[in-house]
């Protein structure tokens, strides 16, 4: 296993998550429903960008945090989802609904092909192959001018009239994010999710219990690819344009850092990581073009001082307080 997870953190996080995180969820959703009526459209756009990125990061965490696999090029499925909608809407007369459905399906199909090769490898080799095959897909998109417009990308992608206003895009991305998070959450709590954790902890033992570890990992990879494709569709609604940079490796590195920043062992960790990184990139972008340099420094700080991520750290602190409270109660 290459992604090391502290065994004690998950059970602790899960209990606190159930009592705190899910209890606060309805209030958070209510606030998000009201917010666009109180803020300028630009901030609604910014929030919609965070929703899209949060979905992308959470989908990666199914493979990275729950599966323990060093997936280094998740951005490629995001890009394929976005390009599918872009190409269908600009080069065919197919309906928008079909484009929206085909985006995630093609991403999942590509994830199946890439995953089929990758799950045969372990650790760093797994990561390097995802990176190599992902860059291969990027190169095809970059060079296939007739279909993808190459380096120029595709712009002014037509979308239905009801999805042209900032508020409608905001509510659509929010709805899709909530539905997707609910599905992903259910998956992590299902027998499949439990078995994925077991295979992450101990693949040899899992195999000896009758679990087909490769198959489990492939299914997780395909699900993650599907939801990355959904995020890609949301990106098109938001930006109405696509470019090969969506599939370039540095996009994937950003997503990976979002997961690390929020916490791999907490379901909502990648969502928090996405919110922080999107806001930070916007603020840094006002002062310098060297966003990647700032990103590198952030990664360094995370690895050295906050290896469990922000939410993981907060949950550990709450756990410490509860234990101290418990021991005080016991002594009284």
């Amino acid at each position, binding site marked *: 296993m290459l992604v090391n997870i502290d065994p004690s*953190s998950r*059970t602790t996080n899960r209990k606190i998550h159930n009592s705190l995180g899910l209890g606060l969820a309805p209030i958070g959703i209510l606030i998000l429903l009201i917010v666009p009526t109180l803020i300028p459209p630009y901030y609604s756009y910014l929030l919609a960008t965070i929703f899209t990125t949060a979905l992308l990061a959470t989908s990666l965490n199914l493979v990275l945090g729950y599966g323990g696999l060093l997936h280094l090029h998740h951005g490629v499925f995001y890009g394929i989802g976005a390009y599918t909608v872009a190409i269908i809407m600009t080069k065919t007369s197919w309906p928008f609904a079909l484009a929206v459905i085909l985006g995630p399906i093609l991403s999942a199909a590509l994830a199946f092909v890439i995953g089929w090769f990758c799950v045969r490898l372990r650790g760093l080799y797994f990561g390097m192959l995802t990176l190599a095959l992902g860059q291969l897909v990027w190169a095809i998109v970059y060079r296939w001018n007739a279909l993808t417009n190459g380096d120029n990308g595709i712009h002014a992608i037509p979308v239905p009239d009801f999805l042209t206003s900032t508020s409608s895009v905001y509510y659509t991305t929010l709805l899709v994010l909530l539905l997707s998070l609910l599905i992903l959450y259910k998956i992590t*709590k299902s*027998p*499949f999710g439990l*078995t994925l954790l*077991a295979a992450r*902890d101990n693949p040899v033992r899992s195999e*000896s*219990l009758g679990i087909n570890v490769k198959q489990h990992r492939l299914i997780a990879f395909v699900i993650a690819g599907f939801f990355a494709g959904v995020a890609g569709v949301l990106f098109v609604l938001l930006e109405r344009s696509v470019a090969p940079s969506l599939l370039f490796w540095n996009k994937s590195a950003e997503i990976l850092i979002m997961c690390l920043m929020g916490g791999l062992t907490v379901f909502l960790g990648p969502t928090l990581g996405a919110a922080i990184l999107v806001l930070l990139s916007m603020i840094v972008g006002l002062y310098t073009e060297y966003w990647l340099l700032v990103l590198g420094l952030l990664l360094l700080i995370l690895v050295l001082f906050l290896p469990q991520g922000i939410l993981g750290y907060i949950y550990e602190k709450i756990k410490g307080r509860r234990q101290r409270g418990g021991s005080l109660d016991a002594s009284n």
Partner: protein
Amino acid sequence: MLQIEQLKKSFEGYQAIANANLSVPQGEVVAVIGPNGAGKSTLFNLITGHLTADSGSIRFQETDITQFTPHQICHHGIGRSFQLINIFSSLTVFENIQTAVLAKHRLDRKLFKPAKKLLKEETLEVLNSFGLVRYKDHLCSSLSYGDQKVLEIAIALGSKPKLLLLDEPTAGMSPDETNRIVQLIKRLSKDEGLTILLTEHDTDLVFDVAQKIMVLHQGETIAQGLPEDIRSDKSVQKAYLGEAEVC
């Protein structure tokens, strides 16, 4: 129940298993003994599919399982515990057993059913029979060494095997903990009629629990039979004590 014939396995020229032959009758406790490096763990890894044999055959209940993968072998009814503790460190004691029970019922790929209450009774039954039910919500890594060893065996039992392989079940245990495992093996054999194949360094334990013993030396079966026959076998004494002492 299990038939091994002329099994061979080498690693880059080193013959770990040279010519192993073994027959495990249904309902018996069979022990594989031998000095360090005799090939006991390699033999277990070959039976459970974690290693692939160079030649020879392994038949389980009339099915040739020599080329099967570990998960296929488990579904045919062979469970195992490992020499070093091999549990799921980030899961609770309950989830460790539940993982095995879910896989046994082929429910491990269910995507939308909550795992929490699925096969709860069956999981608790296994925990109860091993005296682990009070620890069910504990993180398994917080258990004592002895309890982790018991959990190690309980996980293997969670998949309801017909044949249980125990690889040095008492390694690193105190006399009290060893006695607990001995009682457990006897109970599984007598009360539940489970067929058990075990490797063990503690020869007193082996002669106490086994109805049949196979002696492996330098990857080769040098003796096989009843405990009293093995005790008086010259070739076994030679393998264990060296030629000078026997003469």
